Every structure is written in C-alpha cells, then in structure tokens.
C-alpha cells in the first residue's frame, strides 16, 4: 500500500512540475515586451520568450567613458602568503608554525606571470563574447625562468580568490594548463574579497588573487605577504579590466549621457534611482563606494546609508545574483565587465 | 525464605510498609486490598524493580525471582519467540502453550493478540523458568472466566510441582479464596492482617479487613 502511495506521489510531483510549466510561460511573455532591447545581434537569436534578460543599458558601450575613466579601473593582483606572518587564532593569541605551501605558491605565481599564462588570460573569452575580458598590464612583472614541478609535499596549492574572479571562468580555463604541465592541484576557494583575505590570514591559503588595492596594501602592511625571489613587491598586479555601470534601458538617471562616471553616480543619487550594491566588502564594493559623491557619506558601514535605503539596496551576495536583482528591480549596478558579459550572453543567467 | 522488613516512600508519602516475613516454599500467597493499597508496589519491590527506602536487599541474593507485571509487554516477534525469551526449553514451551491453550497462536505475531491471549502468553513466558519466588501481578485480570479457571489450576499445579513460592496479587476475592494458602491484606500501604486463608478471608480479626470483605462481598 505504501509503495503504491509513494509511486503515486512521485508521479504527482512530476505532473505538477509539468503542469506548472505551462502556466509560467504565459506571464513572462508579456513583461519583456515592454523592456525588450536586444543590445547585440547574437542575443536576439538566443532569447526564448520567457526569459527577460536584456534590459541593461551598458554605459561602457559609450566608448569615451571606457577609455578615459580610470576611476573604473579594476586591477587584479596576486600575493603570496608569508609563513612567518603574525598569525593569530580566534582569541588573538599568536600562532606558530602555520603550514603554507610556499613552493607551490611560488610555482603558481611564476606561471601566472609567465608569457604563457598572460597570453592565455588575454585570450580568454575573446571568441565567445567578442570582447576582451582581461587585459595584461603593460608593467606587469614577468617571469621567464624554470618553474619547479610538483612534489608529494608541494602538490596541493590553496588559492583564495574572489567570486568575481572565479565566476568569470578565467581560472577554470587557464589553470588546468598549469596543473597539467607541472603536476600541481590548485584548490580554489572563492568568496567575497573580505572573506578571501580572511582565509589567508587564518592560514588556510597559500596565495590570494584579489582586486582591491586598499585591502591588498593592508594585507601587506600587516605582514601577511612575502616577496618572491626576483621580484620587488609583495603585490604583483598583472591583469586588469574595467568596471562598468549598468542600468535599465530607459536610463531614468541619464547615466549614459553623464560626463564622467562620478557624475552618473551623482545623478543616480539625486534622482533616488534604485541602485544595487554588493554590500560585502568585495573589490567591486570598495570601488563602488569610491564613486559616490562625498556629501552622501556612503561607506561600507551599514549606518552610513541607513537614510538611503529606499533606493540604495545593499545586497550582500555574489555579482551574478546582484545582477539578477538589478534586472528584477530595474536598478543601476556597478559590475566588472567579464561577469556582465557572461550574464548577458547567457540570457540573463550564468 | 525470609523477607526483610522494608518500606517505600514515593514523593514524600509512605506508600508501603512491610514487616519482616517468612514464606514457605510450595505455598501460594495472595495479596489483596483495594486499589492504591500498595499491592503492586509490594510486588515491584520484591521483584527488584523499585528500590526500597532501606536500599538494602530485602531478599537473600541467592533467591531467583520471577515477575509478571500488570501490563505485560508483547515483543515484536511471534508468540513462540516471546515465550522463548523466558528460556529456550522446547518441551517446556510446548507443554505450557498447550496448557494455556495458545498452541494455535505459536506463529502469530504477538502484537496482534487480544488482551486475554497476551496475558496467557506473558504468563507462559514467565513460567518457562523455575524461579524460587514467582510474583504475579493480577495475571488473570484480562482473562475471561473459563481461561481464569484454567490459569488458576495451572498455577496451583505448577506451585506444587516446582515447590516455588507464588505471590499472587489479585483484586478478586474469589480468586484468593480458590487459590491461596495464605493471604496478605493491605490497607493504605500497611499490612493490616495476614495469615491462613480460612482465617483472613472467613474470620478476620481486624476491622478494616471486615469492612473490606463486606464491601467487596461474597
């Protein structure tokens, strides 16, 4: 009796799923009609009726803003964790002998700064999105020597990075080459910048790959990073790309026509237009904070924007989810271009 | 066998007071009294299920005690296996099942028995091993008249054959009259009167006993 009930229940579940699908399709078909704007040729063919994706007005498409606005520069740096760093445990007591795979970290960093890796990074996504996702810095440090192969002890490299980096798919694309050539296994932990750096400070990472200059400099100042042989700085910046300001097609704040990105931000604030903030102390978040007019007094502290909550939405989640939110709420958002392109190309989903 | 004096206090109230006692093997002792008079408490204390106030042994440790509670548990197995929990003696099991007329239920799941059948199974189970002192708490409460009579005869025969001491807690005066050699009458936790059946049940000395007999009637 029970067996039969269970099977019936399973069938009912499947049936409800299928029947539910039919209804769902009608509603979304109306909504996108209002907002539909296909920004690029390739998206038109891929959009099915029920997915409302493409309503982002991409400010960066205005060529002038992209080139001139250093304010939106997003630099990626890799830092090696120093085993002699002043690690402290949860109570604040100093901890000795924290295990850090320096050999592995060295190998990975050397490879990332090699011609091979830089080329791969620069090429990444070009074909798929018809746009450059990552640029190699002209003054990036370079490595030309021999990279040590993996040994039993140094095989596992713990890389702590941010969700933005990981979600762009860059690491997934280039690291297998490194792993194949030298025999290492790279374990990637991705989290918001704050948590990514904290992981290193807790002795859980061998190197970090982040894009928040102020936090990187603090990391170095606190003594957690080390200088690799042959290099000058603890902070090895090698890639960059641009943030872009995105918003609804209608662009009620007139951001597209603003002179600079900071003027755009001012317009958004003045008009109290919905803005989605990462709110998680990430590199993107810190950059966004720096673009608001000073009088507003917006900082990473929640109290600073308590008065603006009707339009300033602090989401505290990953870039993709925030983009989804911007989509739903027809709001403005600062995002890195790689994530945005992936988001759009996949019709609003990644 | 000798029973040391003991008492049992529960939540501040003394529910049982038992003086020192001597029990003779082969005899059936009936424990009677109204509800709440302490009969079951007595049974549980002697069986070792409740600890007495005195916290020491009330019986000599080399005396084996068997006990059948008022609510007997039917384990999740068939009747036969339940009975084998008492002991693995096949022949004895067969005989007991026959005597208690539950042979036909041997392979039946014990959970599906009626009240009377469960009681018979529980009784058979506890009779599988020969104890020096066998305490039965209202064993025939769930049985009909015919089965009760059957059980009583079985118990009397059993007692004579094995020479055990049978302590039978019962709420039925008639049962006591039929079966007992000696009777303990309890009133509000105190052993008011004890002695031979003829004495306690037919010509009691104490007032409470007389009142009890009159109330519960012939």
């Amino acid at each position, binding site marked *: 009796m029970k067996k039969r009930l269970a099977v019936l229940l399973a069938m009912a579940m499947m049936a409800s799923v299928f029947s539910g699908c039919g209804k769902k399709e009608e509603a979304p078909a109306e909504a996108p009609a209002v907002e539909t704007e296909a920004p690029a040729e390739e998206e038109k063919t891929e959009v099915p009726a029920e997915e409302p994706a493409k309503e982002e007005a991409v400010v960066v498409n205005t060529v002038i803003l992209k080139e001139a606005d250093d304010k939106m520069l997003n630099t990626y740096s890799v830092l090696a964790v120093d085993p002699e760093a002043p690690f402290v445990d949860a109570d604040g007591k100093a901890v000795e002998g924290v295990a850090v795979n320096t050999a592995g970290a060295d190998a990975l960093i050397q490879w990332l700064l090699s011609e091979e890796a830089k080329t791969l990074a620069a090429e990444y996504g070009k074909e798929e999105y018809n746009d450059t996702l990552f640029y190699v810095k002209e003054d990036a440090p370079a490595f030309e020597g021999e990279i040590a192969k993996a040994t039993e002890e140094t095989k596992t490299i713990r890389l702590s990075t941010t969700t933005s980096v990981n979600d762009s798919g860059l690491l*997934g694309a280039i690291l297998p080459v490194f792993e194949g050539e030298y025999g290492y296994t790279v374990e990637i932990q991705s989290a918001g910048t704050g948590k990514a750096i904290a992981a290193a400070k807790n*002795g859980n990472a061998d190197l970090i790959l982040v894009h928040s200059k102020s936090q990187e400099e603090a990391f170095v100042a606190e003594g957690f990073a080390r200088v690799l042989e042959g290099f000058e700085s603890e902070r090895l910046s090698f890639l960059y790309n641009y943030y872009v300001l995105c918003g609804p097609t209608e662009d009620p704040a007139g951001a597209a026509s603003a002179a600079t990105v900071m003027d755009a931000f001012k317009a958004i604030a003045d008009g109290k237009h919905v803005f989605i903030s990462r709110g998680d102390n990430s590199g993107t978040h810190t950059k966004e904070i720096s673009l608001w007019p000073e009088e507003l007094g917006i900082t990473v502290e929640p109290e600073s924007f308590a008065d603006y909550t009707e339009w300033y939405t602090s989401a505290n989640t990953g870039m993709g989810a925030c983009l989804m939110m911007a989509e739903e709420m027809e709001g403005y958002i600062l995002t890195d271009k790689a994530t945005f392109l992936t988001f759009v190309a996949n019709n609003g989903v990644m | 066998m000798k029973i040391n004096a003991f008492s049992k206090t529960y939540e501040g109230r003394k529910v049982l007071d038992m003086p020192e006692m001597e029990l003779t093997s082969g005899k059936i002792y009936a424990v009677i009294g109204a509800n709440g008079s302490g009969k079951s408490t007595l049974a549980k204390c002697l*069986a070792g299920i409740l600890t007495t106030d005195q916290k020491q042994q009330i019986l000599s440790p080399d005396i084996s005690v068997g006990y059948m509670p008022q609510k007997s548990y039917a384990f999740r197995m068939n009747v036969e296996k339940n009975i084998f929990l008492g002991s693995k003696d096949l022949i004895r099991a067969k005989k007991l099942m026959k005597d208690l007329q539950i042979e036909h239920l041997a392979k039946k799941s014990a959970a599906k028995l009626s009240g009377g059948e469960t009681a018979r199974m529980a009784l058979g189970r506890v009779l599988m091993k020969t104890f020096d002192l066998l305490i039965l708490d209202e064993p025939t409460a769930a049985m009909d008249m015919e089965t009760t009579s059957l059980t009583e005869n079985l118990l009397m025969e059993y007692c004579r054959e094995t020479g055990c001491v049978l302590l039978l807690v019962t709420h039925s005066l008639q049962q006591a009259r039929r079966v007992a050699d000696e009777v303990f009458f309890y009133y509000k936790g105190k052993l008011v009167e004890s002695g031979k059946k003829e004495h306690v049940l037919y010509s009691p000395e104490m007032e409470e006993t007389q009142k009890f007999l009159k109330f519960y009637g012939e």
Partner: protein
Amino acid sequence: MQSALAKAVALILSADAELCNILSVTAKMSISSSLIALILGVPIGIWLGSSRFRGQSILLIINRTLMGMPPVVCGLIFYMLFSGVGPFGKWKWLFSVRIMILAQVVLILPIVVGNMETYVTGIAQTVKETAKGLGLSGWKTFFLLMNECVYQICSTYLLAFARSIAEVGAVSMVGGAIAWKTNVMTTAIMQYTNRGNFSLGIALGLILMTISLVVNILISVMQRRINR
C-alpha cells in the same frame, strides 16, 4: 520551471563529469554522516530513554538545545578549530570531505538521539519490567529494546539522511565548496544561485529532491517489510 526541468534532464543525460563528481561527493558525505550519526546516536538515545538517573533531564535539555544549533554556527566552530591558525590546523582536515562529515555528524547526532529517546521513553518502563521479571540481563534487555525500535530506527535514519543531504551552512564553511573535491549538491546550488544562474540551481535542486525521494521510498519499503 520547464527550462529548469529540461536543464536537469539534459545535465543528467550528458553525464557531465563535474555533475558526476558533485553527486559522488554528496553521496559519500551524506551516507557517511547519516550512518555514523545513526550508529552513535541510537544506542545513546535508547540509553537516555530507558535509564533514570540524576542529571538525566539536564542531558536531555542539552541535547534538545544542540538539536537547534544553526548549521552555519557549527560550520564556523569547526572552521575555527581546524583553520590554519586553529588548534587542529596541523591535521589539515579543513576543506576535506572528512571534516564535512564530522561537522554533519555533530549536527545530526542530537536529532537522532532526541528521536530515539522520545520513542523509547514510551515503552522503556514496561519493557524493562517485563525483562527483569524474566530474569534477563541488562545487555539482553538493551538489545531487546533496540529490536523493539527497529521501525523507529529506520524512520530516524530517513530523518538523518534528509538533514544531511539538504544541509549547506556547515559544509560550505568547512568544505569550501572546492570544485572536484568538496562541492556537494547544496553548495553547488548556492554557487550557481550566487552567480545569477537560478535555473541551473533549480535544476540541481530537482535532482537533489529526486534522490531524496528515492531514498525515502527504499527505506519505507524496508520499514514495511520489517513490520510484517
């Protein structure tokens, strides 16, 4: 929703290597943690339900409190303990399936204990009296009691398994959701959702629930057999 279902089916049919890895890590973790919690918790629960001793009610209160521990708190505690700077950092258990199992056992054990204790309390007194009356030893009584609970043990296992497979707070913290190593269904769903890929998240969710359903059916059938 239809796209989610289509995606789910497509994923399974494609036998996507990463999905297979996620499924196998999930299976390894959930089965291990629920079984370990069961093996440890059933005897403890039965013991708690059948004994009577001073301090018993305190133990029960502690157990009940532990039942309500938020998984993310549990994850945090283990993260701090096994972190590079933590007391057990040297063991290198962080970001492994082993520590995920450990954290989950700690979460699920109180539930198993609580479940068994509640059930056993109802029958323990009578069983013990009957067993003692028959002259059975303490161990024999314990095993008899366990035998009485078999049906209950099965349903408790279902509960343990369901808790384990649906849990995300603790395993994401201590496991790090590392691709090909410690990524399970729930953390994968969270990752996709955070990236904005909601429909893939739902697709995975459907797969997860189907697995749960299958396990439920299997064990319910087993329960039925036991009860015959």
